[in-house]
């Protein structure tokens, strides 16, 4: 078996992918990306869901039929009805209003953490990949250190020490999230660095900082954008999970994870209290994942090649 695979190296492994260096992905025009996205109906569905939740995060709080934190103990634990579409919780808050208001917690959480992670990752990864040598070695070992840190436990420690709140939880998630981007960016920079146009720029005496900023980084962005889109969903899940165990948003804040935790006691009898916030998380994260998958297929020439060859096989 071993000799077999030596003779037929598959391009799916890192070793041989790096064997063909300096072949930058063509930069994609927005309209091209849109064409690629449109080919897959599911990614359009994902986009629609993402836009829906983005809108909800922006204007949702003005649309709620009730004040999401207004308690009315006389109307507690009511099943879904025309007055309360999703019923009411144990304090008489309108679950529908709370689910809508929750978008303003979860969606921005995702964006804040991913933005922080991408910025730190770009900084560390590009410097490490571009400088190489000892700088690379030291930066990547530091990255490994953060990567080996158990993220949920770190988040719990920070939340426990600084007091549980959503911003603290987000800070903790960001601390453990950037190493993945640093490694991704470093790999891309190593690949793009060997391109001929970078060599040409260097020969023309362009400063390294300018080469990195103008010629290298823009060509590294496609996989970063894809990873970031997919990560938005994961971060929303993690933040909701932290709020669920009490290390994130605190009741009575209408955050989905915290709402599910508050409804746990009524699991058997008043299931609507946790059903709707859970469905909201699921739908929202699914939207980001569908959109991210579609974006990856649209931006990644490798998957386009796959599609092409399967098309020709079908023909």
């Amino acid at each position, binding site marked *: 078996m071993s000799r077999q695979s030596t003779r037929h190296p*598959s391009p799916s492994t890192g070793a041989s992918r790096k064997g063909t260096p300096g072949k930058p992905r063509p930069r994609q025009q927005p309209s091209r990306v849109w064409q690629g996205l449109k080919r897959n109906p599911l990614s359009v569905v994902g986009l629609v869901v993402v836009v829906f939740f983005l809108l909800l995060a922006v204007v949702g709080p003005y649309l709620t039929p009730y004040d999401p934190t207004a308690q009315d103990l006389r109307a507690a634990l009511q099943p879904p009805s025309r007055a309360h579409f999703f019923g009411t919780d144990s304090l008489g808050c309108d679950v529908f209003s709370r689910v809508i208001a929750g978008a303003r917690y979860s969606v921005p959480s995702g964006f804040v953490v991913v933005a922080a992670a991408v910025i730190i990752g770009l900084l560390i990864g590009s410097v490490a990949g571009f400088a190489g040598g000892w700088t690379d070695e030291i930066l990547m070992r530091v990255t490994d*250190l953060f990567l*080996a840190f158990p993220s949920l436990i770190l988040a719990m420690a920070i939340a426990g020490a600084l007091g549980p709140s959503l911003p603290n939880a987000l800070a903790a998630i960001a601390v453990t999230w950037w190493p993945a981007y640093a490694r991704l960016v470093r790999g891309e920079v190593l690949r793009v660095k060997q391109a001929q146009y970078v060599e040409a720029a260097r020969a023309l005496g362009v400063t390294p900082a300018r080469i990195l900023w103008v010629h290298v980084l823009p060509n590294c962005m496609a996989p970063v954008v894809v990873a970031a889109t997919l990560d938005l969903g994961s971060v929303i899940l993690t933040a909701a999970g932290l709020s669920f165990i009490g290390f994130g948003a605190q009741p009575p804040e209408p955050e989905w994870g915290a709402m*599910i935790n508050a409804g746990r006691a009524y699991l058997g009898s008043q299931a609507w209290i946790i059903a709707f916030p859970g469905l909201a998380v699921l739908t929202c994260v699914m939207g980001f994942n569908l959109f991210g998958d579609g974006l990856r297929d649209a931006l990644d020439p490798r998957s386009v090649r*796959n599609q092409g060859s399967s098309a020709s096989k079908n023909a």
Partner: protein
Amino acid sequence: MAAMPKAPRVSAQWRNVGRIVARRLGLSVFLLIGITTMTFVLSHVVPGDPVATMLGDRGTPREIARMRSQLGLDRPLPLQYASYLWNLAHLRLGTSIRTRRPVLKDLADYFPATLELSTCALLLSLALGIPLGIASALRRDRPLDHAARLFSLGGVSMPVFWLALVLLALCYGRWDILPAGGRLSDFTLPPPHVTGLLLVDSLLANDWVAFRDAAWHLIAPSICLGYLTTATLARQVRAQMLEVLNQDYIRMARGLGLSEPVVILKYALKNAMLPVITVIGLSYGSLLSGAVLTETIFSWPGIGRYAVGSSISLDFPALMGVTLLIAVLYGVVNLCVDLLYLVLDPRIRDGAAREIE
């Protein structure tokens, strides 16, 4: 592995292997020192005061000061750090502020539960995810593929704590076919403690009642914990299989008239699985550390729940112990993955490893 064609080649290959292993071990030591330093700094620069939290209302300033000096928290930081490292070198992880027991003992008590749960979850996802990924790739764009992809999409998008609650509400609340939580029913006598893994212990004691009960309790938590990994694996296997099935050597094998099972299992799967091994390793690492939510809901006495409790009471010696344990596990799993690559992929033995790192 099969015999290599020439003897000198073999020794060159294994010299390479030795160098890679040495480098990896060196890096692991560096990582451990780094992580201990980070946990130490983290636990000492934060504003929270564990002693005040521990004493609660009884915490008069004098009492707090007495307690702090008793725990050594009033000494200068470098001194505390030095003694922390010294103790660590002797495997003394300190005393938990909350349980007042040695942290190492606590970890030894709680860890087997986590190990048992995450191993079951991993086995479940291997058994489901790999066949699903293969079938999905072979039936590309057919109903089976769409169903499998939908299932995987659910797995990567599902809030695990919500899935756990839904499972509880249905399987315990409504149908009463699964237990509410814990590792054993109240009336089941636990098997004599050997490994701490109830399935193994009950088998060793030939105690089938306990074995069945432990397995029964493992079902729901393993499903919850394993769903994400199953989904990730199915997606990875599908993508890799599609990639490999397009290769010339597969067309060659088919052209030679080899039967489809031989082509798929012998030629395609072997090559497709290489990158998947990394995913399995990473997943196992995160299963071991990421069981916090599942353990909380199913009252599973593992290190995840231990960490939650420790975090609430600002029990930093315990948290540092958990962090260290998970970091070590993570390192060990990663090391195993890398070694496995050396065994499985001769290209890496040949020295391409430098680039892989």
